[in-house]
């Protein structure tokens, strides 16, 4: 995904609708993209009126708004619309745990996230006013799609006027091939860590060579830990505003039982998350 021309937002007439719409409109304007809203359910006069009044309240869209009304299973409808409309970015809202400052992705949104043919942006705190995006954390793990992901994050950073990008290289603990038992193995482990860190930094730098990153401060951080988990924790610690990740290769039922990679993020969103496809 290196261009965002069409953004899709699911419209559910919930208390969150207003901030969701405002956020979507803002994003659409920033990317200069067309906004498509899909509502799964009946098309009533009341709903149309509500929607229109909200759109009027929000900034004016540069590229216009298209509403789709369709009955059916929400997951199927949204996925279908993504394909039919050639959507580049799908915006989904997250849910908040009762009384806690913790966010997670609901079951429907989760299903959509796993199967969506386009990139997905999960918002934990859509708001009516704009909060500036100040820090983007990108997953730079070794993968074929990583270059694409990093490119996309720079594109997003430029559009959102974000000045700081941290590329996190998650490295599996097992890659060390050394278990720390005593002073000697500790030293060996640390040397190995240094070496892997350098190697990873070089790999990311190679990717960056072809990207214009003059507008941002770029930092590289390698973390040894559980893949998919540690980057979320890092984003939270660093209070990043957006986390950009690769889409998972494919996740079956086993992946949900033995949580890993993206599933960690979905069960507890550290911040807004963009999953690049």
């Amino acid at each position, binding site marked *: 995904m290196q261009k965002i021309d069409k953004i899709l937002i699911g419209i559910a007439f919930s208390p969150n609708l207003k*901030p969701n719409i405002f956020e979507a409109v803002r994003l659409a304007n920033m990317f200069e993209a067309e906004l498509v809203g899909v509502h799964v359910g009946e098309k009533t006069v009341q709903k149309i009126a509500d929607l229109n009044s909200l759109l009027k309240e929000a900034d004016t869209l540069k590229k216009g708004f298209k509403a789709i009304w369709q009955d059916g299973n929400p997951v199927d409808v949204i996925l279908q619309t993504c394909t039919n409309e050639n959507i580049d970015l799908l915006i989904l809202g997250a849910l*908040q745990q009762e009384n806690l*400052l913790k966010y997670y992705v609901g079951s429907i949104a989760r299903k959509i996230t796993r199967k969506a043919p386009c990139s997905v942006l999960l918002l934990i*705190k859509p*708001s009516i006013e704009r*909060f*500036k995006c*100040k*820090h983007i954390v990108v997953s730079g793990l070794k993968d074929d799609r990583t270059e694409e992901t990093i490119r996309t994050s720079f594109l997003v950073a430029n559009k959102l006027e974000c*000045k*700081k990008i941290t590329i996190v290289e998650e490295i599996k603990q097992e890659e060390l091939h050394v*278990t*720390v*038992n*005593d*002073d000697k*193995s*500790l*030293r060996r*482990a*640390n040397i190995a860590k240094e070496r892997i860190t350098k190697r990873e930094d070089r790999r990311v730098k190679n990717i960056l060579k072809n990207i214009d990153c003059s507008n941002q*401060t770029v930092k590289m*951080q*390698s*973390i*040894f*830990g*559980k893949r998919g*988990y*540690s980057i979320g*924790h*890092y984003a*939270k*610690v660093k*209070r990043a505003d957006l986390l950009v990740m690769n889409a998972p290769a494919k996740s079956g039922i086993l992946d949900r039982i033995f*949580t890993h990679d993206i599933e*960690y993020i979905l069960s507890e969103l550290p911040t807004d998350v963009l999953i690049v496809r």
Partner: protein
Amino acid sequence: MKKKNSFKAFVSEIPKNLFAGFVVSLIALPLGLGLALASGAPPISGLIAAIVGGIVVSLLGGSNVTITGPGNGLVVVILAAITTLGNGDMQQGFLFTLAAIVISGILLIILGFLKMGSLGDFFPSSAIQGMLAAIGIGILAKQIHVMLGNTDANGSIIDLLLQIPEGIINLFKTDNSSMFYAGLVGIASLLFMIFYSKIRNRYVQLIPAPMWIVVLSVGLYYYFDVFSTTEYPIDKSLLINLPDDILSSFAFPDFGKIFEINFINAVIGITLISSIESLLSIKAVDKLDPLKRRSNVNKDIRALGLATVISGFLGGLNVVTVIARSSVNVNNNGSNKSANFFHALFLVAFILLFSTELRKIPLPALAAILVYTGYKLASPENIVRVFKVGKEQLIIFLITLLTTIATSLITGIIVGILATFIIHIIIIKNAKLFFKNILKPNVLMFKEDGKYYVSVKNFSSFLNYTKLKSKLNQIPESEEAIIDFSMCDFVDHSVMENMNNYAQTFTRKGGHFEVIGLDDTKSISSHPFALRKILTLKTTSFIKVLTKRQKSLKKISKEMHWKYDAFSAQEVEELPTFGYFKTREINKVSNVLSNEDCTIFDIQFSEGELIAKQVIKATMLHIHPKNEVPDFTLDQEGIFEYILHFAGYKDIGIDAHPDFSRRFYLSGKNEEKIRAFFTDELILFFESNKQYHIEASKNGLLIIGKERLASVKEMKALAYFGIALQKII
């Protein structure tokens, strides 16, 4: 090259290790005999364990100054195994138990290969304390009767305890002179054990107390034998019994009951206790090691397992790492593995040279040594110490203690774990926190600016401590580490205790280990290891207690002659005038360190409203300048984005200092005043110091480091930065 040097060092250290090994063997001899007797096994089995352990572990083990041999924790388990497996026949029971010992050795080897050496981390520390105390009481209950000359006392631990007064009365009423004198020797030995440390004589202190007891009691025999006309009053049945030909009469394990449930129970019990005892000892001994080496626990466990297998086949007890003997080793300048090896060799020499003399040791004398060890394990001091940590720890401790005494060790420890878990749930009033997060990885560690930063999420207790531990173990102890619990809702006693241990190790090795993020928690007692939970619910049972960080801040404030107030609210009035706080709402200011002009404080503020609310904790410095300061913000170019608040103002370049202009982003309304304010001296100061984000207004300067709480060290640096800056302005 390096190898040769270390070999040379090894050889040059042999003499002092030889001596240390000798002193240790002086204790190991009576303890080995005594522990075996207390276990209901033949006395020689304890020495076999010590000898095999000393040789095998010193050659193959992964630790440096530990001493291995029969352990006191196992006495109760082995005694129980011998009685239940033998159905009353102690001799046959012992042979079955040897088989259990061999198998537990094999299990230990497997655990070692699976890197499961951390088994002991899954047990909450109060439960382990309770278990150890129960073992102590078990040893004491049985041995106190032997000490009083009565080897026939039998029954459960509770029965034996109840029989103690009767036993004392019996001793003085008895017409059996052998028993009476034996009892006297026992009581005298116990008194000697108790008061030994009070004797200041250098020559007395040269030989450890247990060996004195052996030497004196054997001496007593020879006194009667050679000088006195009367017969030695203690009957042969109350003297130690060694086989006539020590070298050829090894007992061989009997694997006949290997599939019986009792046998399996015994194997589990022995494995569990021996691994816990070894692990605790290895950890404790590492703290004593003068060369500050780190033991390879898994390698050590493998070696101990192998030693146990060999010892079991030769008719010896389990081999474990023992703390008391190891600390004697360290105190006598033992510095490498050879001390353990020599201790074994000396034991061999003692058996071969002095076997006749050893047969003259009265059992009550050995029992006295064990009564003393048992008492130390279960001493009231321990209970007081646990109580100080918190009432709930005492409950866990007592539940484990009583269950262990009333049932068995395994039941005891399982009940202890369950009790701890239930108590944690009651305290936090939220079982979901534990169940939902127990399997999730909850620890993040990364290295930044040369420091290791570890953040722990959700909760941290004995249940998931291994995850934290495996990360912490990867940090060299000579480095700086910051452990942040601010995302944790609950931290338990076991973790707090371990954090303290890490802090000690780091300090010893020249590093720095600091725990942050607990200042907002409530603690259950004033003890530094007490469990802590985040202040969310309004509970009254928790007291606000200074954390370690707050205490060190207090100390620093004294050193620097600053004022310190952990819970102050005065600063809040001026802060909102800064641009930084225009969009941020201040919730709370705490840990205020101040002198007349500078104030350093922890601040908790939130960004956004309601659903978008995010709570941030950070440390900042506020300076009241003497002269007027123009409004400006200064940042290292590109690093901070606070510039937003001054959007619309360009970077003000200062022509005379192109380097400064390039590195820093300076902005503000009144360019002229700002240019005048930035004198050469000030610019030089900024260029040469660690860079912070600085914001100035008519109310002073606000200096912000990272957007998180600073460690004590960082706060100190911030303070000095402030003082220096203050001077220049």
